[in-house]
Structures are given as structure tokens and as C-alpha cells.
């Protein structure tokens, strides 16, 4: 039998769960956060980078106290073929401004810190406990079941990540489909801070973020990423599951090949592998949005599929934090009115609809479909590399006018395809 009833039980101590826990505990609610790992963050991984704006609103100047790695001041997009690369670099002082800045993070440290803030505010954190099921009474969620234990609450927040088995049990979500998720794999490669700063042309404490498209996934839908941490690099690949089936190489093999690519190899030289991790990324955005709430229950963060992949930026944690905030606001009102029905918790959806979360998800709604185009991962990187080869490789053979060079290469892809894809891309963004 339940011993104690909480105002709110949160399943999962990632950014969404801990943000909600922090705000609810701050408002004086009795909150229990249950985490299946031995500590918050021990089951979590990110590419990764945190866009600071949403947490900044909640904990002002958090980066001065939180375990963030480096502030990103340099963004690079690289198109890869098997032996060549063309990169676009973006550096701006604006990347440095408050609310606009982003930080590389490692989740074991970062999530522990955020969960600690929730604990400091009065939330109870129960790590090492797997929630197996939900308690229902008259169709309402009334708590959670973990092994032999039952724990009751007025409302349960499901912040249990992309696989969220519980959101399915709550009837909020249907099973993920292979075209809605990507698998991400990552190596954390240790290097001295000075070496990282020298290799990437950074001042002390500054960071770089790089994304790669093309040969790194062997033309499969997905891409590569590299983020600089304080004393390590986060290097990895992401593949849409649906497109992997016919791959000649396995995911681990493709990661090894990526590491030996002539562009990557010197960047990780003399580095030491300290961890290898993997995770699913919900990538279908609005097209996979579950029902966000029901009587006595809400779903937040990755569990709700709140991720935006716009190709050049991938965002999840800032949405997770904002969703945790919206959920907590709805619950604080629900508590005041002593009404945890679906009608009352609908405030969560209203708040999300009015925030950047839903507005951005709508903005990029068509993008996942646009990315399901093999030309983006094969022909176009090759096309760009071929044009640059013609421009920069001088070997004594007679030169041609640049426009002819460009046109010849473009014709190989097909001008109609090129125009069609360009138009689709513009529309999708």
C-alpha cells in the first residue's frame, strides 16, 4: 500500500524532469523524482550542445555555476566525400551574447547538477529505481509502480526519455517508427585543453561545433558531429533508422571509418577514448507529437519527441527544459485549483503552444520529410566538392570558365532535381 502521497512524481531526472522538479519544489510542492540510473545523467547522452536561452530564463547566469564544457563561438558545416571536404565556417561575436549563447555539455555532470538544484529546492531524488508501470484509478493516473513498491501522486510527469515505455502505457503515445528516430553514437575522446584550443583555433574556454554531411554516413540519411569539451572531444554519427536497413557497413564500422577520414584523423590524433555511448533521437518533430497530457499525467522532453532537427542545428535539451517549465506551471495552477483532470492539465499544452517549442516545431514541420532525400547525402556533397576541386586543383590541364565547370557538375545531378530540391529546402525552412 502507498505510504505517502506526493503532489507530483516525475519519472526521469534528465533536463525536462529536473527542471519541472526544481520549479515545483520551489513553489512548495512535494515532489519525488525517480531515476533508473545510479545518478541523474548516468543513462543519458547528448551530441552535444545546450542552447542556453530556456534554462537562462529559469536559472539566470547558470553557466557560471553549472558544469558546462565550452561556450561555442565557432560553427562549421562540412560536406564530405571519401577523400575531400568543403566547409563553411561561421564565427560571430553574437554567438557570445547572453541568451544567444550555447554550451557544449557532458550529461553525467550536467544532469547531476540540474537534479541537484531540484534537490536543493526540496525535491526528493530517488536514483537507482526503475518505474515499471503506472497506477490507474477510474482511468486516471494516480501514481507509479516500481518493483513491489507503489507510490501515489496527484500528477505524474513522464520524463523518461525517447523510448518512453510509460507514455505508451499511459495511452499518450504509440510505438516509435524507424523513420521517426535516429540512432546516435558517440565517442568521448580525451585531449589536453591546450591541444583542443590549438587544433580548433579557439581562445581559452571557447568551443567549436562541427557537423558533417555526406561520406560520414556513406550517403545514408544522417550526419556526423564534433563538439569540443574542456578536455575532450565528442565525436559521433547519427543515422535515421529507416534508412539503415540496406547499409553495407554496420554503425560501429561507419564510426571507425569516419574517425579515419583524412579530415577527422588529425583532429583526434593522440586522443584517448574514454567512453562510447549511443542513444535514439526523436527526429520527426510535430509529425510524431504524442498526446501531451491526460488525467493525472503529462509527458515532457524527449519522451514527447520534442526535438528539432533542422539539419544544421539539432535541438532537444532547450525544448526539454521549456517543456518541464510549462508542465510545472500547469501543475502549480492545478494544485491551486485542486484539479488534476485532463481539462486542467491542458494548460500545459496551451503554454507550449504559445512558447518557442511549438512555434519552432511548426516552423520546421516539413523539414524531416525534406531530409528524406538521398541526394542531400550523396550527390550534393560530391557536387560541391567537384566544383571546389576544379577551382583549386592546378595540374597543367587546360582551364575552363568557372560557370562551365559549375554547370557541368550540376548537370550530373540534374538541373531539375537541383532546382526542385532547392525550392523544397527553402519551403521547409
Amino acid at each position, binding site marked *: 500500500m502507498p505510504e505517502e502521497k506526493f503532489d507530483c512524481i516525475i519519472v526521469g531526472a534528465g533536463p525536462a524532469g529536473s527542471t519541472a522538479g526544481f520549479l515545483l519544489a520551489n513553489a512548495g510542492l512535494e515532489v519525488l523524482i525517480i531515476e533508473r540510473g545510479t545518478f541523474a545523467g*548516468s*543513462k543519458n547522452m547528448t551530441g552535444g550542445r545546450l542552447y542556453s536561452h530556456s534554462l537562462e530564463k529559469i536559472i539566470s547566469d547558470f553557466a557560471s555555476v553549472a558544469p558546462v564544457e565550452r561556450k561555442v563561438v565557432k560553427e562549421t558545416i562540412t560536406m564530405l566525400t571519401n577523400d575531400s571536404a568543403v566547409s563553411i565556417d561561421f564565427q560571430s561575436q553574437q554567438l557570445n551574447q547572453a541568451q544567444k549563447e550555447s554550451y557544449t555539455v*557532458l550529461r*553525467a555532470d550536467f544532469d547531476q547538477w540540474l537534479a541537484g538544484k531540484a534537490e536543493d529546492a526540496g525535491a526528493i531524488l530517488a536514483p537507482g529505481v526503475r518505474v515499471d508501470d503506472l497506477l490507474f484509478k477510474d482511468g486516471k493516473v494516480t501514481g507509479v509502480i516500481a518493483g513491489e513498491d507503489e507510490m501515489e501522486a496527484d500528477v505524474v510527469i513522464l520524463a523518461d526519455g525517447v523510448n518512453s515505455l510509460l507514455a505508451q502505457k499511459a495511452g499518450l503515445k504509440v510505438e516509435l517508427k524507424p523513420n521517426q*528516430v535516429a*540512432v546516435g553514437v558517440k565517442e568521448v575522446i580525451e585531449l589536453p585543453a591546450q591541444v583542443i584550443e590549438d587544433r580548433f583555433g579557439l581562445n581559452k574556454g571557447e568551443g567549436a561545433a562541427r557537423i558533417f554531411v555526406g561520406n560520414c554516413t556513406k550517403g545514408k540519411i544522417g550526419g556526423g558531429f564534433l563538439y569540443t569539451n574542456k578536455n575532450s572531444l565528442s565525436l559521433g554519427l547519427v543515422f535515421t*533508422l529507416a534508412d539503415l536497413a540496406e547499409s553495407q557497413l554496420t554503425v560501429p564500422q561507419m564510426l571507425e571509418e569516419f574517425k579515419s577520414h583524412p579530415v577527422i584523423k588529425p583532429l583526434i590524433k593522440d586522443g584517448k577514448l*574514454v567512453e562510447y555511448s*549511443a542513444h535514439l533521437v526523436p527526429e520527426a518533430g510535430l509529425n510524431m507529437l504524442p498526446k501531451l497530457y491526460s488525467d493525472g499525467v503529462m509527458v515532457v522532453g524527449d519522451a514527447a519527441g520534442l526535438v528539432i532537427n533542422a539539419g544544421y542545428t539539432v535541438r532537444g535539451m532547450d525544448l526539454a527544459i521549456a517543456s518541464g517549465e510549462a508542465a510545472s506551471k500547469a501543475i502549480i495552477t492545478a494544485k491551486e485549483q485542486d484539479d488534476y483532470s485532463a481539462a486542467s492539465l491542458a494548460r500545459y499544452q496551451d503554454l507550449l503552444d504559445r512558447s518557442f517549442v511549438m512555434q519552432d516545431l511548426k516552423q520546421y514541420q516539413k523539414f524531416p520529410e525534406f531530409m528524406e532525400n538521398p541526394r542531400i547525402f550523396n550527390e550534393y556533397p560530391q557536387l560541391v566538392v567537384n566544383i571546389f576541386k576544379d577551382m583549386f586543383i592546378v595540374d597543367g590541364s587546360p582551364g575552363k570558365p568557372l560557370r562551365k565547370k559549375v554547370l557541368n557538375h550540376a548537370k550530373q545531378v540534374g538541373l531539375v532535381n537541383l532546382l526542385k530540391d532547392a525550392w523544397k529546402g527553402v519551403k521547409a525552412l
Partner: protein
Amino acid sequence: MKPISIEEKLGVNKFNVDEGNPHIIIKKETGNLEVIKKCVIACPAGLYSIKEDGNISFDFAGCLECGTCRVICAGTGILDWNYPQGTFGVEFRYG
């Protein structure tokens, strides 16, 4: 960096394996090679393989708990997939 085998990579990680209590069980061994082949390609930890005699080889120790095989096999009844019990499984020290 020298090439690293998947076994060596997993060896760098911290695991607390729930010996004798697998969190992923292959329920239907036969007739599902096409689906399992997708897991062989996609499993980040390389835990699935198909032996020469056509049997499936799978080891839950070393699982990174991503759920890739779960999504690939969803609706087929091939896998019984759950998270490991609390405190068990992979423990990311960096993440």
C-alpha cells in the same frame, strides 16, 4: 588514433551487468533473419550477429540501452525489451 574494435570500445565503458537477468530476450529465433539483419547493422554495440549456421547470436551485456533494436523489432514479437533493473546496465561517466 588506432582503429578500436567494438569489444575494446565497450571495455572502456562502465557496466553493472545484471548477470542471469537479461533485459532483452529474443523470443522468436526462427524466421526473422531479415529483421535481425537490420539489428546487426544498426546496433551501436554490435551485440547482434548471425552465425554461419543461421542462428542468431546476442549478448545483452554491453548494451547501451538506446532502444534501436526495440524500434526495429516493434510489432514483430521478436524481442522482449525492457530497461535493466534500477542501478544495472551501462553507467555513462561522461554522457
